[in-house]
């Protein structure tokens, strides 16, 4: 456990920042929380709206089992208490994007109770600096629709595609103490959600957004008054909000002012927060149990199914990569930071072990290095993600197997990989076609070495005079003469012998 030393230096001394996040995560599900309408992102306005979502007269909500299941699985993934009895409440207010005139949410009896998330503050050495952030609760609720103010000069349009989409509101305890901790928490939460598959975590599409609660205090004092900055949609912005708000609050307090409990909005262009409404004009939401819905009661069979369906979670996976696969802490952390990467890596491992008839541990290091340097480098260059990588895990494993069994050198492997990326052909075929198999034929290599040494008499002399760094030059020239196909070990050996 690590104690944050993050402090804001004010005129009156040091200030500590206290942060809590309320994260709204859209539940991955084909259908909305209480209707059968679809939930795809980016559909034409008002094409994913059922009679229920539009709150037509007489329409009734029916809970979608899959949404509940996903929230329960998420709760289990953060070691939270799952409430076998929970209930939906109505939060009443009028707005044009809220067809029912109320949002169905869970105020009094949330689906998921207390849990926790371990955050890692040093990505190079994840276990060196960790901190546990408490989770207060997770409840499920409906999203609202969207107002469009740019479609008509004097009118606003309403798109109800999002109306009724299931959200999980994941409420942390006020356990974070720095922008870095807030950022690490949000990243870790997103990682977990993606592992569980309960939310795609795409903050730029709005499927995950955070309300950031910030207050400041003199270290050791009581909590200060907090502000809540709504709908912040990236990890970077969350960190920026914390930093801006904390400094703003310190300035206000040190100037003799008081912090007003209020809702604020973040403006990424100006990097500042602005007051939206204060507590005084807060709505009276008149929460009460939704009489259209029965209490949600979960049985043991359902809970067990949820538990069984949970994948290996990021922390466990990272430790396994380190301990069982022998990967470095950094590589293990990088490979497990994202569920898709870990899935890809594991497919690569499984294929590699199969082709090479070795254990996964034996192929792990080479696989990890290739994925993180060669493949990532290529994808970066091509502007692609792992998801649409032109080379799949199976093709990658074939390439690595050719290196491992000495068929090609690492250098040739890079060329082969480039060809794979360009043509989509597979490594064994490329090596065969282009005659790239490396040779250990000492006769041919000896001849090449002899020619290199003869052509570079001056350098041989310099080498013999003590400039040993030139050894690499002779290796390079020989490899070049062999068109890279010589076994580097044999080349080294023969050059050493020839220069002896």
């Amino acid at each position: 456990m690590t104690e944050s030393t993050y402090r804001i230096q004010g005129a009156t001394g040091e200030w500590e920042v206290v942060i809590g996040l309320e994260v709204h995560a859209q539940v991955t599900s084909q259908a909305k929380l209480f209707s059968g309408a679809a939930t795809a992102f980016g559909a034409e306005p008002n094409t994913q709206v059922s009679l229920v979502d539009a709150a037509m007269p007489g329409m009734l909500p029916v809970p979608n089992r899959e949404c509940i299941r996903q929230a329960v699985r998420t709760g289990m993934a953060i070691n939270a208490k799952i409430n076998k009895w929970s209930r939906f409440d109505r939060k009443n207010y009028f707005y044009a994007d809220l067809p029912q005139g109320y949002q169905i949410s869970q105020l009094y009896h949330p689906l998921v109770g207390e849990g926790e998330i371990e955050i890692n503050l040093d990505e190079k050495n994840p276990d060196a600096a960790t901190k546990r952030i408490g989770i207060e609760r997770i409840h499920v609720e409906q999203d609202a629709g969207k107002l469009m103010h740019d479609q008509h000069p004097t009118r606003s349009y309403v798109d109800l595609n999002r109306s009724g989409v299931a959200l999980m509101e994941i409420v942390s305890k006020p356990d974070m103490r720095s922008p870095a901790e807030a950022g690490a928490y949000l990243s870790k939460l997103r990682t977990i959600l993606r592992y569980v598959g309960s939310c795609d975590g795409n903050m730029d599409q709005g499927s995950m957004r955070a309300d950031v609660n910030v207050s400041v205090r003199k270290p050791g004092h009581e909590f200060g008054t907090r502000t809540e900055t709504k709908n912040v949609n990236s990890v970077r912005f969350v960190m920026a909000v914390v930093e801006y708000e904390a400094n703003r609050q310190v300035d206000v307090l040190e100037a003799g002012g008081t912090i007003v409990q209020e809702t604020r909005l973040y403006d990424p262009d100006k990097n500042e927060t602005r007051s939206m409404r204060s507590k005084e004009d807060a709505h009276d939401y008149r929460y009460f149990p939704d009489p259209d819905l029965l209490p949600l009661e979960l049985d043991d069979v359902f809970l067990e199914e949820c538990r069984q369906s949970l994948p290996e979670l990021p922390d466990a996976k990272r430790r396994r990569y380190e301990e069982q696969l022998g990967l470095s802490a950094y590589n293990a952390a990088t490979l497990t930071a994202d569920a898709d990467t870990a899935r890809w890596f594991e497919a690569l491992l499984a294929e590699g072990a199969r082709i090479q008839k070795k254990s996964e541990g034996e192929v792990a290091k080479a696989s990890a290095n290739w994925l993180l340097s060669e493949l990532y480098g290529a994808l970066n260059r091509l502007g692609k993600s792992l998801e649409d990588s032109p080379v799949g895990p199976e093709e990658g494993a074939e390439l690595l197997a050719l290196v491992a069994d000495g068929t090609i050198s690492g250098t040739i492997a890079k060329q082969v990989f480039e060809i794979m990326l360009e043509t989509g052909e597979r490594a064994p075929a490329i090596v065969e076609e282009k005659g790239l198999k490396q040779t250990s034929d000492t006769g041919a290599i000896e001849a090449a070495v002899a020619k290199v040494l003869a052509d570079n008499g001056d350098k041989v002399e310099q080498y013999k005079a003590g400039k040993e760094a030139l050894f690499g030059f002779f290796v390079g020239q020989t490899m070049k003469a062999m068109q890279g196909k010589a076994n580097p070990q044999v080349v080294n050996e023969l050059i050493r012998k020839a220069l002896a």
Partner: protein
Amino acid sequence: MTDLTDLTVAEIRDGFRAGDFSAREVAEAFNANVASAKALNAFIVETPEKALAAADAADKAKAAGEALKPLSGVPIGMKDLFCTEGVQTTAASHMLEGFKPTYESTVSKKLWDAGAGMLGKLNLDQFAMGSSNETSYFGNVISPWRRGGGDNAALAPGGSSGGSSAAIAARLCPAATGTDTGGSIRQPAAFTGISGIKPTYGRCSRWGIVAFASSLDQAGPMARTVRDNAILLETMAGFDPRDSTSLDLPVPQWEANLSSDLKGKTVGIPREYRPDGLNAEIAALWDRGIEWLKDAGAQVVEVSLPHTKYALPTYYIIAPAEASSNLARYDGVRYGQRELPDGAGLQDMYAATRAAGFGPEVKRRIMIGTYVLSAGFYDAYYTQAQKVRTLIARDFEQAFEKCDLLLTPTAPSASFALGEKQADPLAMYLNDIFTVPASLAGLPAMAVPGGLDSQGLPLGLQIIGKALDEQGVLNAGLAIEERAGFTARPEKWW
């Protein structure tokens, strides 16, 4: 030939099957009665073509020797709280004037699928809020009944299902749907000398019924006989996955199991339903009802429902609370009325739309509901009311340890003159005093006519049963019906 509009649902069904008359003859006869009864204002929309189309389909099926449906040949009225596809559905409010749903409520669809035809959409109290039909935006229904002795005062048909009760009593339809939140089937049935049953909460799907108070609203049939109620309820009831509060249970064969033999049954008489000052004629009818049930073989015991006196205040917290939220969707944004004064913003549009769209009683209940749910008052009102509701339900459970059924009056008075109670909402709310407790407990309850008072107006008795025991309720209703021999009908003046 008998007047086809005097026939019961069972008689129409069976006579049509027997070939005594065609379905079209039946539909035409009722259409004619509807068309000539404008003075009653029972319908908001008349749909004679729908009644004829269903009748023709039935006649055709019969001619072709195809299997007939349970309600083939039977035309009915539909309370205008049920959404009907392509037919204006208003809940008797200006707010929804002109609203034509693109969907059909579950209950109405079940009825049409069973072969019934629609005569029209029946008037009601606005959003089902009222006991006299005077809150309808489309003008009040007038009861076909009049006091004797040349008193021509227009009387209330009861409410909220007043269009249904008046239309059945006046032979404009043999049966109709109703909905009951605190007595809206039973009290109008009692006022007009017909029968109606509110089944156990959850028996009938609420999907597609304009919501008033979700935890109380139940659809049910209204008709002239107990048997007809059993027939209709069998079609209307049943599990609906689109209503989370719908009961996933098979629908019993209520009609086939009708029996007025009450041997082995014990009927409880709740002493709290006989307050000081109870109308003497109603008390006397109640006593007659007790004798009828004894005559049918039942034992009669006195029971206590100690929290009865809190039922009305509890109801008038819970029902408005739910209504205030349920009616929030009528905001002028997506359908129904929109009032957009010049230069109005969103909030102004809400205010103008809702000011114009809702009648005074609806506004009153929205305000009461908003108040009882507001911060600082929630626990004192809403939470407390929920606790009392639990106690009221427990009263019934304890009483049902000693008896199988309860017998009470349906309403504290006979029908009153229109306008008589309009000025005093509390006096109007008192109409529900005997019907509200069963609603709060979600129990099946039925009104059956028992006789006429000294002014010649019908009085009803109420039977309340255990949860899911509609059969017991119907059977006791049948026993009363057979003994009361209620054949009175309003003299035609319209």
